[in-house]
């Protein structure tokens, strides 16, 4: 199955695919949309003929879309998480502005698989152990994989040290270690550079540790949350080696789950959860997200 899928927000239009429980695109499917959303989407007056296609479900008026052809894709049931988990997830996946989460900030994620290129000066031991660590983390994410490549042109994740060829000109004057991330208008990360200052991290053990930190952070432009317990990577309390806790892994897995809408800003994320949770609570309906194949 083509993993390159784009997100189509089914939520907003409340399409419900019936007659089929299959997750794949079904042929005999009837699409319904709420009257309110029909007006918003199609912006044309409804005729008396249209009203023949009205269906009443749980006090909602739904319009059957007769000629609607949905693009090929995959429908994924909403992944429920409790509010305690969502609060901590939001604090890590979205950005802060002036001590409060920025409603307009967007979550970033990798759509394509990660292809890592190491500059020549990166130590063999560091390369080997970094890849082992990264593969182990990524193996827990269904929709992502990682590999090492030998040619820089085949890569989308470049690791180099100060003094090496400057792969990202925007980091030319950086004297500290950092990463630089590129994403598209869907908030999909498509290129990343890590530049490490080997004078500060003066042996392979220290460099490896720092690179592991950047790797986890770069899986989603994640922020540390200083309020969570120091056992967790996402607390930012790392001192020795990185061991991901259940919470850390769950946050990464959830970030890459297609049971949530991807690449949204915080405001949309919260609105979606509110609507989906209300549907669950009031109507006991588990809605789905439809992700179109690219």
């Amino acid at each position, binding site marked *: 199955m083509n993993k390159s899928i784009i997100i189509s927000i089914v939520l907003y239009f409340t399409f419900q695919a019936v007659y089929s429980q299959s997750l794949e695109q079904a042929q005999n499917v009837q699409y319904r949309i709420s009257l309110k959303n029909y007006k918003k989407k199609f912006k044309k007056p409804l005729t008396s003929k249209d009203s023949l296609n009205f269906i009443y479900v749980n006090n909602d008026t739904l319009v059957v879309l007769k000629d609607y052809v949905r693009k090929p894709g995959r429908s994924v049931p909403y992944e429920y998480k*409790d509010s305690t988990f969502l609060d901590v997830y939001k604090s890590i996946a979205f950005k802060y502005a002036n001590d409060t989460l920025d409603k307009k900030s967007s979550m970033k994620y990798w759509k394509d698989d990660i292809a890592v290129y190491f500059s020549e000066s990166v130590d063999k031991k560091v390369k080997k152990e970094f890849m082992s660590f990264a593969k182990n983390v990524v193996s827990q994410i269904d929709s992502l994989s990682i590999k090492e490549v030998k040619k820089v042109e085949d890569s989308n994740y470049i690791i180099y040290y100060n003094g090496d060829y400057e792969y990202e000109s925007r980091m030319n004057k950086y004297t500290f270690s950092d990463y630089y991330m590129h994403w598209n208008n869907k908030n999909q990360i498509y290129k990343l550079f890590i530049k490490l200052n080997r004078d500060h991290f003066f042996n*392979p053990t220290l460099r490896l540790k720092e690179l592991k930190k950047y790797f986890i952070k770069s899986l989603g432009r994640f922020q540390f949350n*200083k309020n969570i317990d120091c056992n967790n990577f996402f607390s930012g309390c790392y001192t*020795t080696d990185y061991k991901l806790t259940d919470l850390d892994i*769950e946050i990464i897995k959830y970030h890459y789950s297609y049971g949530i809408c991807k690449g949204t800003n915080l405001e949309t994320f919260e609105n979606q959860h509110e609507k989906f949770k209300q549907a669950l609570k009031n109507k006991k309906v*588990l809605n789905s997200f439809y992700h179109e194949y690219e």
Partner: protein
Amino acid sequence: MKIIFKNIFLVIAIFAFTCCYSQSSDLKDYLKTDYKIYKNSDTLDIVFPKDSKKIVDKTVKTIDTTALHFLNDFDLFSNSYFLKKYKKLIFGLDKNVIIHQWSGPVIVYFDKKIPKPIIEDLKVFINSFPNIKNLDISITNNINEANYLFKVSSKDVTALTEKQLSDYTEAQLENYPYYKIIHDWHGNKNYKLYVSTLTISQSFLDNHTILDNLKKVFFISLLQAKGYTVNDDTSILYRKNKGFKTLGAFDIVMLKYHYKTIYKFKVDFNVFTAMENYYKKLNNE
């Protein structure tokens, strides 16, 4: 009259309780929250897409109140002399300074470019440190094991600005520990240090103050102190003390208090003051 006294007593008691409670509450705001995920421990009833039950996880959070237990016997707060000196050394006049600590072993490596007599002198100095709880310092000959590097730079390094360099006399500058030495460090988001580099200007290696200044910078770096002088003649940071081979008695006390506990939360001047007040309430001072 009795009733008036009773009322006054009641008001004082309420005030004391409120004050004490609010101070501990202030500190509780800084405590970390642990999140535990209980897998498949909750059930949601679903009608659509099909009548079923969906099993979901449950996240439970708890606040680590044990992080304040150390305050019960944090006797720095009952020693006004050392408390005053400690505050001045660590925070200076800057209330935004945050206490930084090493939470793991400090493993020192000396760059081979440093002259042997200097290395040997520094080794004697570091090895003379007494046992200090929560502060483990050792020296290694293998750079790959180290997290604290002493190295030489062929280019001159300084922590001073151009203006400061031109404003002070050579004698004044030589007494400033960071005149030709700099200290770079990395810490985590919990203000714990995990790597340090102490860089010495090559041109300074022959200076008669090199050893004193290196020892001072190393000592200050363990405290991440804002100050670099101390008005106590048992400290290596006392202006008149020169040519010391070991830490002074005052310095050991400072390190012992600094590492008495590894803070699990951010401690700046305000939090430190709240801790002090809370300690005093606990001990009815």
